[in-house]
Protein backbone atom coordinates (compact mmCIF):
# COMPACT_ATOMS: atom_id res chain seq x y z
CA UNK A 1 0.00 0.00 0.00
CA UNK A 2 2.76 2.42 0.87
CA UNK A 3 4.27 2.15 -2.62
CA UNK A 4 1.08 3.19 -4.38
CA UNK A 5 0.66 6.75 -5.49
CA UNK A 6 -3.04 6.61 -6.26
CA UNK A 7 -5.75 5.15 -4.07
CA UNK A 8 -8.93 4.74 -6.08
CA UNK A 9 -12.47 3.98 -5.03
CA UNK A 10 -11.78 0.48 -6.39
CA UNK A 11 -9.44 -0.09 -3.45
CA UNK A 12 -12.31 0.52 -1.05
CA UNK A 13 -14.55 -1.81 -3.03
CA UNK A 14 -11.88 -4.48 -3.00
CA UNK A 15 -11.47 -4.24 0.76
CA UNK A 16 -15.21 -4.37 1.28
CA UNK A 17 -15.45 -7.40 -1.02
CA UNK A 18 -12.65 -9.15 0.87
CA UNK A 19 -14.36 -8.46 4.18
CA UNK A 20 -17.67 -9.73 2.80
CA UNK A 21 -19.32 -6.38 3.44
CA UNK A 22 -22.15 -5.08 1.32
CA UNK A 23 -20.73 -1.88 -0.11
CA UNK A 24 -22.94 0.99 -1.14
CA UNK A 25 -21.60 4.39 -2.12
CA UNK A 26 -21.59 5.65 1.46
CA UNK A 27 -19.53 2.73 2.74
CA UNK A 28 -17.17 2.96 -0.21
CA UNK A 29 -16.61 6.63 0.61
CA UNK A 30 -15.98 5.89 4.31
CA UNK A 31 -13.59 3.06 3.50
CA UNK A 32 -11.76 5.13 0.94
CA UNK A 33 -11.27 7.92 3.50
CA UNK A 34 -9.96 5.40 6.04
CA UNK A 35 -7.60 3.85 3.48
CA UNK A 36 -6.25 7.25 2.47
CA UNK A 37 -5.63 8.05 6.17
CA UNK A 38 -3.81 4.73 6.54
CA UNK A 39 -1.69 5.50 3.52
CA UNK A 40 -0.72 8.88 4.97
CA UNK A 41 0.01 7.25 8.34
CA UNK A 42 2.23 4.63 6.74
CA UNK A 43 4.05 7.32 4.80
CA UNK A 44 5.02 8.82 8.17
CA UNK A 45 6.15 5.40 9.37
CA UNK A 46 8.24 4.77 6.24
CA UNK A 47 9.85 8.20 6.61
CA UNK A 48 11.52 6.96 9.80
CA UNK A 49 15.02 5.56 9.57
CA UNK A 50 14.89 2.23 11.33
CA UNK A 51 18.24 0.92 10.16
CA UNK A 52 19.88 -1.18 12.82
CA UNK A 53 16.72 -1.76 14.82
CA UNK A 54 15.99 -5.22 13.39
CA UNK A 55 17.76 -6.97 16.21
CA UNK A 56 16.12 -4.81 18.84
CA UNK A 57 12.73 -5.73 17.43
CA UNK A 58 13.55 -9.43 17.47
CA UNK A 59 15.29 -9.51 20.84
CA UNK A 60 13.35 -10.36 23.99
CA UNK A 61 12.27 -7.24 25.82
CA UNK A 62 14.43 -6.23 28.74
CA UNK A 63 12.85 -6.65 32.14
Amino acid at each position, binding site marked *: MADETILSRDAALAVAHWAGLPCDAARAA*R*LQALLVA*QKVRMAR*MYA*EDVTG*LEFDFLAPRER
Partner: protein
Amino acid sequence: MREEDLDRMTIAGAGRAIRAGTLSPVALTEATLARIGRLQPRLNAFITVTADLARQQAREAEAEIAAGRWRGPLHGVPISLKDLYCTRGVRTTAGSTILADYVPDFDAPAAARLRQAGAVLIGKANMHEWACGVTNDNPFFGRCHNPWKHGHIPGGSSGGSAAAVATRQGLASLGSDTGGSIRIPAHMCGLVGHKPTYGLVPRFGVFPESWSFDHAGPIALTAEDAAIVLDTIAGPDPRDPSCLTGRPPRALRGIRRGVRGLKVGVPTDVYFDDCHPEVAAAVRLAIEVFARLGAELVEVSIPEARHGLDLCLVVAWAEAAHFHRRWLQERPGDYGPDLVDHLASASAYTAVDYLQAQQVRARVRLAYRRLFERIDLLLSPTAPLPATPHGAEEVVVDGRPASVLGLAAGLTAIANATGEPACSVPCGFTTDGLPIGLMVHGPILSDPLVLRAAHAYERSQQWHDRRPPAV
Protein backbone atom coordinates in the same frame (compact mmCIF):
# COMPACT_ATOMS: atom_id res chain seq x y z
CA MET B 1 -26.03 2.14 56.17
CA ARG B 2 -27.49 4.82 53.93
CA GLU B 3 -26.74 5.04 50.23
CA GLU B 4 -25.14 8.48 50.71
CA ASP B 5 -22.64 6.95 53.14
CA LEU B 6 -20.95 5.50 50.05
CA ASP B 7 -19.73 8.92 48.98
CA ARG B 8 -16.75 9.17 51.34
CA MET B 9 -15.77 5.56 50.91
CA THR B 10 -12.62 4.09 49.39
CA ILE B 11 -11.35 0.51 49.33
CA ALA B 12 -8.70 1.33 51.95
CA GLY B 13 -11.25 2.91 54.27
CA ALA B 14 -13.95 0.31 53.71
CA GLY B 15 -11.43 -2.48 54.15
CA ARG B 16 -10.34 -1.11 57.54
CA ALA B 17 -13.94 -0.66 58.67
CA ILE B 18 -14.95 -4.14 57.52
CA ARG B 19 -12.00 -5.67 59.31
CA ALA B 20 -12.83 -3.73 62.47
CA GLY B 21 -16.43 -4.91 62.27
CA THR B 22 -17.87 -1.41 61.96
CA LEU B 23 -18.97 -1.89 58.35
CA SER B 24 -21.02 -4.82 57.12
CA PRO B 25 -20.21 -6.19 53.65
CA VAL B 26 -23.90 -7.07 53.28
CA ALA B 27 -24.97 -3.50 54.10
CA LEU B 28 -22.27 -2.07 51.82
CA THR B 29 -23.39 -4.31 48.98
CA GLU B 30 -27.07 -3.43 49.50
CA ALA B 31 -26.24 0.29 49.46
CA THR B 32 -24.25 -0.21 46.27
CA LEU B 33 -27.09 -2.15 44.62
CA ALA B 34 -29.52 0.60 45.64
CA ARG B 35 -27.28 3.16 43.96
CA ILE B 36 -27.02 1.05 40.83
CA GLY B 37 -30.80 0.77 40.79
CA ARG B 38 -31.05 4.56 40.94
CA LEU B 39 -28.27 5.48 38.48
CA GLN B 40 -28.33 2.70 35.88
CA PRO B 41 -31.25 4.23 33.93
CA ARG B 42 -29.32 7.52 33.66
CA LEU B 43 -25.68 6.48 33.30
CA ASN B 44 -25.94 2.95 31.86
CA ALA B 45 -22.61 1.99 33.41
CA PHE B 46 -23.39 -1.74 33.39
CA ILE B 47 -24.15 -4.38 30.80
CA THR B 48 -24.96 -6.95 33.49
CA VAL B 49 -25.70 -6.34 37.17
CA THR B 50 -24.90 -9.43 39.25
CA ALA B 51 -27.13 -8.63 42.22
CA ASP B 52 -27.78 -12.21 43.34
CA LEU B 53 -24.13 -13.19 43.11
CA ALA B 54 -23.09 -10.02 44.93
CA ARG B 55 -25.51 -10.67 47.79
CA GLN B 56 -24.28 -14.26 48.09
CA GLN B 57 -20.60 -13.20 48.08
CA ALA B 58 -21.29 -10.43 50.60
CA ARG B 59 -23.00 -12.86 52.97
CA GLU B 60 -20.08 -15.30 52.64
CA ALA B 61 -17.57 -12.51 53.28
CA GLU B 62 -19.44 -11.33 56.35
CA ALA B 63 -19.56 -14.83 57.78
CA GLU B 64 -15.89 -15.49 57.08
CA ILE B 65 -14.76 -12.22 58.63
CA ALA B 66 -16.97 -12.79 61.67
CA ALA B 67 -15.25 -16.16 62.03
CA GLY B 68 -11.84 -14.45 62.03
CA ARG B 69 -10.85 -15.28 58.47
CA TRP B 70 -10.28 -11.78 57.02
CA ARG B 71 -8.55 -12.13 53.65
CA GLY B 72 -7.39 -8.55 53.08
CA PRO B 73 -8.59 -5.07 52.16
CA LEU B 74 -10.81 -6.26 49.30
CA HIS B 75 -12.70 -8.76 51.42
CA GLY B 76 -16.38 -7.86 51.26
CA VAL B 77 -15.79 -4.83 49.00
CA PRO B 78 -18.02 -4.41 45.90
CA ILE B 79 -16.15 -4.08 42.60
CA SER B 80 -17.00 -4.39 38.93
CA LEU B 81 -15.23 -5.78 35.88
CA LYS B 82 -15.19 -4.42 32.37
CA ASP B 83 -17.35 -6.84 30.43
CA LEU B 84 -14.44 -8.38 28.56
CA TYR B 85 -13.09 -10.27 31.60
CA CYS B 86 -14.34 -13.83 31.45
CA THR B 87 -16.35 -14.67 34.55
CA ARG B 88 -17.46 -18.15 35.49
CA GLY B 89 -21.23 -18.41 35.23
CA VAL B 90 -21.67 -14.73 34.35
CA ARG B 91 -22.33 -13.50 30.81
CA THR B 92 -19.30 -11.86 29.17
CA THR B 93 -20.06 -9.85 26.04
CA ALA B 94 -17.01 -7.66 25.26
CA GLY B 95 -19.67 -5.10 24.38
CA SER B 96 -20.67 -7.11 21.30
CA THR B 97 -23.88 -8.79 20.23
CA ILE B 98 -21.71 -11.65 18.94
CA LEU B 99 -21.10 -12.69 22.54
CA ALA B 100 -24.53 -11.64 23.84
CA ASP B 101 -25.19 -15.12 25.20
CA TYR B 102 -21.64 -16.21 26.05
CA VAL B 103 -21.32 -17.51 29.60
CA PRO B 104 -17.74 -18.62 30.34
CA ASP B 105 -17.04 -21.64 32.52
CA PHE B 106 -13.89 -20.08 33.95
CA ASP B 107 -12.64 -16.85 35.49
CA ALA B 108 -9.89 -14.78 33.88
CA PRO B 109 -6.91 -14.97 36.30
CA ALA B 110 -7.33 -11.31 37.30
CA ALA B 111 -11.01 -11.89 38.05
CA ALA B 112 -10.20 -15.11 39.91
CA ARG B 113 -7.65 -13.29 42.07
CA LEU B 114 -10.20 -10.66 43.03
CA ARG B 115 -12.66 -13.43 43.86
CA GLN B 116 -10.01 -15.17 45.98
CA ALA B 117 -9.32 -11.86 47.75
CA GLY B 118 -12.98 -11.85 48.78
CA ALA B 119 -14.14 -9.00 46.54
CA VAL B 120 -17.85 -8.86 45.77
CA LEU B 121 -18.64 -8.78 42.05
CA ILE B 122 -21.37 -6.19 41.61
CA GLY B 123 -21.57 -6.29 37.82
CA LYS B 124 -19.99 -6.30 34.38
CA ALA B 125 -19.34 -2.78 33.16
CA ASN B 126 -20.41 -1.23 29.87
CA MET B 127 -17.62 -0.65 27.36
CA HIS B 128 -16.93 0.46 23.81
CA GLU B 129 -17.77 -2.38 21.42
CA TRP B 130 -14.84 -4.83 21.51
CA ALA B 131 -12.80 -2.14 23.34
CA CYS B 132 -12.15 -0.45 19.98
CA GLY B 133 -12.84 3.21 20.72
CA VAL B 134 -13.06 5.95 23.31
CA THR B 135 -16.70 7.07 23.33
CA ASN B 136 -18.48 4.11 24.94
CA ASP B 137 -21.37 4.76 22.56
CA ASN B 138 -22.20 1.08 22.37
CA PRO B 139 -24.56 0.17 19.50
CA PHE B 140 -25.93 -2.91 21.28
CA PHE B 141 -25.95 -2.05 25.00
CA GLY B 142 -26.45 1.70 24.78
CA ARG B 143 -24.48 4.82 25.54
CA CYS B 144 -22.73 5.17 28.85
CA HIS B 145 -22.81 8.77 30.11
CA ASN B 146 -20.19 10.77 31.94
CA PRO B 147 -21.32 11.26 35.56
CA TRP B 148 -19.83 14.76 35.56
CA LYS B 149 -21.90 15.89 32.57
CA HIS B 150 -24.79 13.93 31.15
CA GLY B 151 -24.64 13.59 27.37
CA HIS B 152 -20.85 13.59 27.41
CA ILE B 153 -18.65 10.57 26.86
CA PRO B 154 -17.11 8.89 29.90
CA GLY B 155 -14.05 8.07 27.81
CA GLY B 156 -13.20 4.58 26.78
CA SER B 157 -13.02 1.95 26.08
CA SER B 158 -13.46 1.18 29.82
CA GLY B 159 -16.07 3.93 30.13
CA GLY B 160 -18.64 1.93 32.10
CA SER B 161 -15.97 1.00 34.64
CA ALA B 162 -15.07 4.65 35.16
CA ALA B 163 -18.67 5.90 35.30
CA ALA B 164 -19.43 3.19 37.88
CA VAL B 165 -16.44 3.91 40.13
CA ALA B 166 -16.89 7.69 39.97
CA THR B 167 -20.39 7.23 41.38
CA ARG B 168 -19.45 4.52 43.89
CA GLN B 169 -21.33 1.81 42.02
CA GLY B 170 -18.56 -0.44 43.26
CA LEU B 171 -15.33 0.98 44.72
CA ALA B 172 -13.04 -0.11 41.87
CA SER B 173 -13.17 -1.80 38.50
CA LEU B 174 -10.82 -3.63 36.22
CA GLY B 175 -10.39 -2.10 32.78
CA SER B 176 -8.19 -2.85 29.83
CA ASP B 177 -5.88 -0.43 28.04
CA THR B 178 -4.74 -0.77 24.41
CA GLY B 179 -4.19 2.89 23.57
CA GLY B 180 -5.34 4.51 26.79
CA SER B 181 -8.60 2.72 27.60
CA ILE B 182 -7.97 2.73 31.35
CA ARG B 183 -6.35 6.17 31.61
CA ILE B 184 -8.64 8.10 29.24
CA PRO B 185 -11.86 7.26 31.15
CA ALA B 186 -10.02 7.85 34.44
CA HIS B 187 -9.02 11.30 33.12
CA MET B 188 -12.53 12.07 31.90
CA CYS B 189 -14.28 10.83 35.04
CA GLY B 190 -11.91 12.18 37.73
CA LEU B 191 -10.36 8.88 38.81
CA VAL B 192 -7.05 7.06 39.11
CA GLY B 193 -6.44 4.65 36.25
CA HIS B 194 -3.27 2.61 36.12
CA LYS B 195 -1.95 0.83 33.05
CA PRO B 196 0.62 -1.58 34.46
CA THR B 197 3.89 -2.69 32.92
CA TYR B 198 3.24 -5.01 29.98
CA GLY B 199 3.02 -8.58 31.24
CA LEU B 200 2.53 -7.70 34.91
CA VAL B 201 -1.17 -8.64 34.94
CA PRO B 202 -2.24 -11.78 33.05
CA ARG B 203 -4.54 -11.22 30.10
CA PHE B 204 -5.72 -14.79 29.71
CA GLY B 205 -9.51 -14.71 29.64
CA VAL B 206 -9.57 -11.02 28.73
CA PHE B 207 -10.94 -10.58 25.21
CA PRO B 208 -8.19 -8.93 23.18
CA GLU B 209 -8.10 -5.90 21.00
CA SER B 210 -4.39 -6.19 20.27
CA TRP B 211 -2.07 -8.76 21.80
CA SER B 212 1.01 -6.56 21.86
CA PHE B 213 -0.72 -3.36 23.04
CA ASP B 214 -3.30 -4.74 25.50
CA HIS B 215 -2.87 -4.32 29.25
CA ALA B 216 -5.19 -5.19 32.15
CA GLY B 217 -5.35 -2.90 35.17
CA PRO B 218 -7.38 -1.04 37.78
CA ILE B 219 -9.61 2.03 37.76
CA ALA B 220 -10.00 3.29 41.31
CA LEU B 221 -10.92 6.28 43.46
CA THR B 222 -7.39 6.83 44.77
CA ALA B 223 -3.83 5.78 44.02
CA GLU B 224 -3.80 3.74 47.22
CA ASP B 225 -6.88 1.83 46.08
CA ALA B 226 -5.32 1.27 42.66
CA ALA B 227 -2.24 -0.15 44.40
CA ILE B 228 -4.39 -2.50 46.50
CA VAL B 229 -6.10 -3.84 43.39
CA LEU B 230 -2.88 -4.03 41.36
CA ASP B 231 -1.10 -5.99 44.10
CA THR B 232 -4.03 -8.42 44.08
CA ILE B 233 -4.14 -9.08 40.34
CA ALA B 234 -0.43 -8.89 39.38
CA GLY B 235 1.77 -11.92 38.92
CA PRO B 236 2.38 -14.61 36.34
CA ASP B 237 -0.14 -17.11 35.05
CA PRO B 238 1.04 -20.00 32.89
CA ARG B 239 -1.89 -19.55 30.51
CA ASP B 240 -0.58 -16.13 29.42
CA PRO B 241 2.83 -16.52 27.73
CA SER B 242 3.34 -12.74 27.69
CA CYS B 243 3.39 -12.62 31.49
CA LEU B 244 6.55 -11.52 33.22
CA THR B 245 7.96 -14.26 35.38
CA GLY B 246 9.05 -13.88 38.98
CA ARG B 247 7.52 -12.09 41.91
CA PRO B 248 5.78 -8.85 40.87
CA PRO B 249 6.76 -5.57 42.53
CA ARG B 250 4.44 -4.53 45.35
CA ALA B 251 2.77 -1.18 44.84
CA LEU B 252 1.13 -0.59 48.22
CA ARG B 253 4.28 -1.04 50.25
CA GLY B 254 6.12 2.29 50.27
CA ILE B 255 3.30 4.24 48.65
CA ARG B 256 3.65 6.98 51.30
CA ARG B 257 7.34 7.65 50.68
CA GLY B 258 6.67 10.80 48.67
CA VAL B 259 8.57 12.23 45.72
CA ARG B 260 11.37 14.17 47.42
CA GLY B 261 14.59 13.79 45.46
CA LEU B 262 13.01 12.20 42.40
CA LYS B 263 13.97 13.53 38.97
CA VAL B 264 10.72 14.29 37.20
CA GLY B 265 10.72 14.96 33.47
CA VAL B 266 8.63 17.76 32.01
CA PRO B 267 8.23 17.43 28.24
CA THR B 268 9.09 20.43 26.13
CA ASP B 269 7.59 19.05 22.91
CA VAL B 270 4.66 16.98 21.58
CA TYR B 271 2.82 16.47 24.90
CA PHE B 272 1.36 19.96 25.14
CA ASP B 273 0.67 20.34 21.43
CA ASP B 274 -3.04 20.61 20.59
CA CYS B 275 -3.79 20.80 24.29
CA HIS B 276 -6.98 22.44 25.54
CA PRO B 277 -5.77 25.56 27.40
CA GLU B 278 -7.51 24.61 30.65
CA VAL B 279 -6.01 21.12 30.51
CA ALA B 280 -2.54 22.53 29.89
CA ALA B 281 -2.91 25.03 32.74
CA ALA B 282 -4.09 22.40 35.23
CA VAL B 283 -1.28 20.02 34.32
CA ARG B 284 1.38 22.72 34.57
CA LEU B 285 0.09 23.67 38.02
CA ALA B 286 0.23 20.02 39.03
CA ILE B 287 3.82 19.79 37.86
CA GLU B 288 4.68 22.76 40.06
CA VAL B 289 3.18 20.89 43.00
CA PHE B 290 5.73 18.13 42.43
CA ALA B 291 8.49 20.71 42.76
CA ARG B 292 6.99 21.92 46.05
CA LEU B 293 6.87 18.32 47.23
CA GLY B 294 10.64 18.09 46.73
CA ALA B 295 10.99 16.60 43.25
CA GLU B 296 13.55 17.99 40.83
CA LEU B 297 11.95 19.09 37.58
CA VAL B 298 13.97 18.34 34.46
CA GLU B 299 12.91 19.62 31.04
CA VAL B 300 13.13 16.86 28.45
CA SER B 301 12.66 16.65 24.71
CA ILE B 302 11.12 13.41 23.47
CA PRO B 303 10.12 13.91 19.83
CA GLU B 304 9.51 10.16 19.42
CA ALA B 305 6.28 10.71 21.36
CA ARG B 306 4.69 11.89 18.12
CA HIS B 307 4.57 8.27 16.90
CA GLY B 308 2.38 6.95 19.72
CA LEU B 309 -0.95 7.29 17.96
CA ASP B 310 0.32 6.11 14.57
CA LEU B 311 1.82 3.01 16.16
CA CYS B 312 -1.42 2.22 17.91
CA LEU B 313 -3.48 2.78 14.79
CA VAL B 314 -1.24 0.52 12.70
CA VAL B 315 -0.09 -2.24 15.03
CA ALA B 316 -3.07 -2.46 17.36
CA TRP B 317 -5.67 -2.13 14.60
CA ALA B 318 -3.87 -4.66 12.40
CA GLU B 319 -3.83 -7.08 15.33
CA ALA B 320 -7.50 -6.33 16.00
CA ALA B 321 -8.35 -6.98 12.34
CA HIS B 322 -6.56 -10.31 12.62
CA PHE B 323 -8.48 -11.30 15.75
CA HIS B 324 -11.80 -10.37 14.13
CA ARG B 325 -11.12 -11.69 10.63
CA ARG B 326 -13.56 -14.62 10.70
CA TRP B 327 -16.45 -12.86 12.40
CA LEU B 328 -15.84 -9.86 10.16
CA GLN B 329 -16.33 -12.02 7.09
CA GLU B 330 -19.08 -14.24 8.45
CA ARG B 331 -21.06 -11.80 10.64
CA PRO B 332 -20.35 -8.25 9.45
CA GLY B 333 -23.87 -7.23 10.39
CA ASP B 334 -23.11 -7.99 14.02
CA TYR B 335 -20.64 -5.12 14.27
CA GLY B 336 -21.47 -1.48 14.80
CA PRO B 337 -21.20 0.61 11.63
CA ASP B 338 -18.06 2.52 12.65
CA LEU B 339 -16.17 -0.52 13.89
CA VAL B 340 -16.85 -2.74 10.89
CA ASP B 341 -15.39 -0.14 8.52
CA HIS B 342 -12.32 0.42 10.70
CA LEU B 343 -11.66 -3.31 10.98
CA ALA B 344 -12.14 -3.83 7.25
CA SER B 345 -9.77 -1.00 6.36
CA ALA B 346 -7.19 -2.14 8.92
CA SER B 347 -7.16 -5.50 7.14
CA ALA B 348 -5.51 -3.70 4.24
CA TYR B 349 -2.28 -3.03 6.13
CA THR B 350 0.38 -5.25 4.59
CA ALA B 351 2.83 -7.43 6.47
CA VAL B 352 5.52 -5.02 5.39
CA ASP B 353 3.56 -2.10 6.84
CA TYR B 354 3.16 -3.96 10.12
CA LEU B 355 6.87 -4.76 10.33
CA GLN B 356 7.87 -1.18 9.55
CA ALA B 357 5.59 0.01 12.35
CA GLN B 358 7.09 -2.55 14.74
CA GLN B 359 10.56 -1.24 13.92
CA VAL B 360 9.46 2.33 14.55
CA ARG B 361 8.03 1.02 17.79
CA ALA B 362 11.44 -0.41 18.69
CA ARG B 363 12.94 2.99 18.01
CA VAL B 364 10.40 4.64 20.32
CA ARG B 365 11.02 2.05 23.02
CA LEU B 366 14.74 2.69 22.80
CA ALA B 367 14.20 6.45 23.09
CA TYR B 368 12.10 6.05 26.23
CA ARG B 369 14.52 3.56 27.75
CA ARG B 370 17.27 6.17 27.32
CA LEU B 371 14.99 8.91 28.64
CA PHE B 372 14.40 6.96 31.84
CA GLU B 373 18.14 6.62 32.36
CA ARG B 374 18.10 10.39 33.00
CA ILE B 375 14.82 10.82 34.88
CA ASP B 376 12.67 8.75 37.25
CA LEU B 377 9.24 9.74 35.95
CA LEU B 378 7.64 11.76 33.17
CA LEU B 379 4.64 14.04 33.81
CA SER B 380 2.19 15.15 31.14
CA PRO B 381 -1.49 15.61 30.38
CA THR B 382 -3.24 12.25 30.18
CA ALA B 383 -5.14 13.56 27.18
CA PRO B 384 -5.20 17.02 25.62
CA LEU B 385 -8.97 17.40 25.78
CA PRO B 386 -11.65 16.85 28.44
CA ALA B 387 -14.77 14.75 27.85
CA THR B 388 -16.63 15.67 24.67
CA PRO B 389 -20.36 15.44 23.86
CA HIS B 390 -21.64 12.10 22.65
CA GLY B 391 -21.88 12.13 18.87
CA ALA B 392 -19.01 14.58 18.35
CA GLU B 393 -16.43 12.67 16.31
CA GLU B 394 -14.31 15.78 15.78
CA VAL B 395 -13.41 18.89 17.73
CA VAL B 396 -11.74 22.07 16.50
CA VAL B 397 -8.17 22.64 17.67
CA ASP B 398 -6.41 25.82 16.58
CA GLY B 399 -9.05 26.26 13.89
CA ARG B 400 -8.53 22.77 12.47
CA PRO B 401 -10.82 19.76 12.87
CA ALA B 402 -9.24 16.91 14.84
CA SER B 403 -10.63 13.48 15.62
CA VAL B 404 -11.70 12.85 19.22
CA LEU B 405 -10.16 9.36 19.09
CA GLY B 406 -6.86 10.68 17.77
CA LEU B 407 -6.63 13.44 20.34
CA ALA B 408 -7.78 11.32 23.26
CA ALA B 409 -5.33 8.46 22.65
CA GLY B 410 -2.40 10.39 21.21
CA LEU B 411 -0.48 10.68 24.49
CA THR B 412 -1.64 7.56 26.28
CA ALA B 413 -0.80 5.23 23.38
CA ILE B 414 2.92 5.83 23.83
CA ALA B 415 3.10 3.72 26.98
CA ASN B 416 1.18 0.96 25.20
CA ALA B 417 3.84 0.94 22.50
CA THR B 418 6.68 0.87 25.04
CA GLY B 419 5.00 -1.40 27.61
CA GLU B 420 5.88 1.01 30.41
CA PRO B 421 3.57 1.77 33.34
CA ALA B 422 1.51 4.95 33.30
CA CYS B 423 -1.19 6.25 35.57
CA SER B 424 -3.76 9.04 35.31
CA VAL B 425 -4.51 10.95 38.51
CA PRO B 426 -7.03 13.82 38.83
CA CYS B 427 -5.43 17.27 38.73
CA GLY B 428 -8.29 19.69 38.26
CA PHE B 429 -11.48 20.60 36.45
CA THR B 430 -12.42 22.76 33.50
CA THR B 431 -14.71 25.73 34.07
CA ASP B 432 -17.47 23.45 32.71
CA GLY B 433 -16.86 21.08 35.60
CA LEU B 434 -15.16 18.35 33.57
CA PRO B 435 -12.26 16.46 35.19
CA ILE B 436 -8.65 16.71 34.02
CA GLY B 437 -6.00 14.03 34.51
CA LEU B 438 -2.25 14.20 35.02
CA MET B 439 -0.32 11.28 33.54
CA VAL B 440 2.59 9.83 35.52
CA HIS B 441 4.73 7.60 33.27
CA GLY B 442 7.72 5.56 34.42
CA PRO B 443 10.20 2.93 33.22
CA ILE B 444 9.45 -0.78 32.97
CA LEU B 445 8.38 -2.28 36.33
CA SER B 446 8.32 1.08 38.09
CA ASP B 447 4.61 0.62 38.88
CA PRO B 448 5.16 1.17 42.63
CA LEU B 449 7.01 4.42 41.94
CA VAL B 450 4.33 5.64 39.51
CA LEU B 451 1.55 5.00 42.04
CA ARG B 452 3.66 6.44 44.87
CA ALA B 453 4.06 9.69 42.91
CA ALA B 454 0.34 9.74 42.08
CA HIS B 455 -0.44 9.19 45.76
CA ALA B 456 1.91 11.98 46.89
CA TYR B 457 0.32 14.44 44.48
CA GLU B 458 -3.23 13.32 45.25
CA ARG B 459 -2.72 13.69 49.03
CA SER B 460 -1.49 17.25 48.55
CA GLN B 461 -4.71 18.19 46.73
CA GLN B 462 -8.45 17.68 47.19
CA TRP B 463 -9.48 16.83 43.64
CA HIS B 464 -10.38 13.26 44.55
CA ASP B 465 -12.81 14.50 47.22
CA ARG B 466 -15.20 16.05 44.70
CA ARG B 467 -18.40 14.21 43.85
CA PRO B 468 -19.97 14.13 40.38
CA PRO B 469 -23.39 15.74 39.93
CA ALA B 470 -24.88 12.40 38.85
CA VAL B 471 -24.62 11.16 42.44
